[in-house]
């Protein structure tokens, strides 16, 4: 366990050092969520007037939850790009040789993704409050939203890690990104679930991220709903992708 942790610590430190000393990695990580937040809140705030839209905290808070979860998911995927780059440059192979307990490699990447996302989350939260976001939740509700987003971040990095370890090339980027993009956008992004109609309503109903998103919005509104289902869905995804990542690690080991 101790050796796993020391490997994880080394991998996490290196990943974070690489990210935070490279402006081309830091700036998009902060700018893209902010950009989506601006575009959605600024451009679509009139949606608040659509009949049937009853979210008391307003459209800024409504979209904040989505953008926070999106930043968590994409924070994980972007870390996956780094893993693929490590394989392409040969660093990951040296890491596999040097690490006494290789599970620590996966844990290290996941810890790095989480720390990376926390910086984005703080930045986004400060901006949201600065532009007047209203929060109805108590001292427990808001942290519950961040914990939920952190689990989503872990699930996303484990998914991306599994792909990176199987394909071991930067060209795997779209394979990591596209499913996450689809799962995110097939949830009720712009309006609540009850206002979705047609095929997208059916897809959103079975999309596990819908529960997470609706629960996240309920936390901000101060009236928690679907909490167990949301945490269950997020944990379920994290456990599933942990298994996926570990299988990927074994495949990378077998590939030599």
């Amino acid at each position, binding site marked *: 366990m101790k050796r796993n942790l020391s490997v994880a610590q080394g991998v996490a430190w290196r990943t974070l050092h690489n990210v935070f000393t490279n402006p081309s990695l830091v700036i*998009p990580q902060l*700018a*893209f969520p902010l*950009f*989506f937040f*601006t*575009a959605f*809140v*600024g*451009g*679509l*705030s*009139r*949606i608040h*007037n*659509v*009949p*049937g*839209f009853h979210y008391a905290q307003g459209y800024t808070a409504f979209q904040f939850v989505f953008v926070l979860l999106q930043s968590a998911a994409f924070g994980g995927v972007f870390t996956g790009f780094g893993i693929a780059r490590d394989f392409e440059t040969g660093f990951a192979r040296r890491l596999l040789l040097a690490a006494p307990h290789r599970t620590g490699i996966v844990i290290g990447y996941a810890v790095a993704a989480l720390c990376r996302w926390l910086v984005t989350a703080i930045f986004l939260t400060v901006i949201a409050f600065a532009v007047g976001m209203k929060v109805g939740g108590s001292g427990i509700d808001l942290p519950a939203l961040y914990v939920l987003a952190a689990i989503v971040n872990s699930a996303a990095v484990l998914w991306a890690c599994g792909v990176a370890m199987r394909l071991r090339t930067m060209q795997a980027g*779209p394979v990591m990104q596209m499913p996450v993009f*689809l799962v995110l*956008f*097939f949830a*009720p*992004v*712009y*309006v609540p679930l009850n*206002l*979705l*109609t*047609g*095929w*997208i*309503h059916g*897809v959103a109903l079975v999309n596990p991220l819908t529960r997470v998103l609706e629960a996240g919005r309920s936390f901000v509104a101060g009236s928690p709903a679907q909490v167990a289902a949301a945490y269950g869905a997020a944990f379920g995804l994290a456990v599933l992708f942990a298994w996926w990542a570990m299988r990927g690690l074994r495949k990378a080991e077998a590939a030599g």
Partner: protein
Amino acid sequence: MRTTADQVLLLARRSIVHTARQPAAIVFPLLFPMLLLAVNSGGLRAETHLPGFPTKSFVAFALAVPFIQGALFATMNAGTDLARDVETGFLSRLSLTPLRGAALLAGQLGGVVALGVIQACFYLLVGLVVGVRPAAGVGGVAVLLVFAAMIALAFGSIGAWAALRTGSPEAVQSLFPVFFVFLFISSMNIPRNLISTTWFRYAATANPVSYLLECVRSLIITGWNGEALLLGFGIVTLVAITGLSLAAYTLPRRLAR
């Protein structure tokens, strides 16, 4: 004259074949805008209940977006290809031949325009299949295809200029987020008069991409709207002239003989 035309044709053919050999360069510009159309038209359908929304079909409203988005993808691909030609030395080898600079640009952009028109036909076909009927009729569809070709030419020339200026595919790719910002801070998802956030409405009004979208949208939703057409064609012509001038100015430095 005939020699120049032959050179243009050869280079356009090379550009098209080069693109055709990279499935990702074709599939992604076709698929991704359609995916976003599906997502947005499903998620934002409730917007049609807003008073003053110009149509009851959000797909018809949103169908303008793929035209611009597809052109951006094509532009990035074309710019990246040209930058790769600079990086690999292909352009330097061309400079040893009697090839005219204008033919190089025309050939490269010819390929981009061809791809742009193919994409536009695909988007229109998808629109027709899901029940969108362009209000401007068959003539409107023809104008739409001409406009799509002009958008591809205009953005393609900007991509070509960036490629010639930097000679780096990565630098050309880094333009993509900039274009994307222009697309999102526009009337992409809602008509400008329905944007309630004042600064966003001003930004969308100042953003030329809004007028390109509204030109396409007018042909699909309202029919023949002289103002929207004039603004759309005027802006795309201006962008094309600027892009072509910048590319033509930069080209001799890359084709130093």
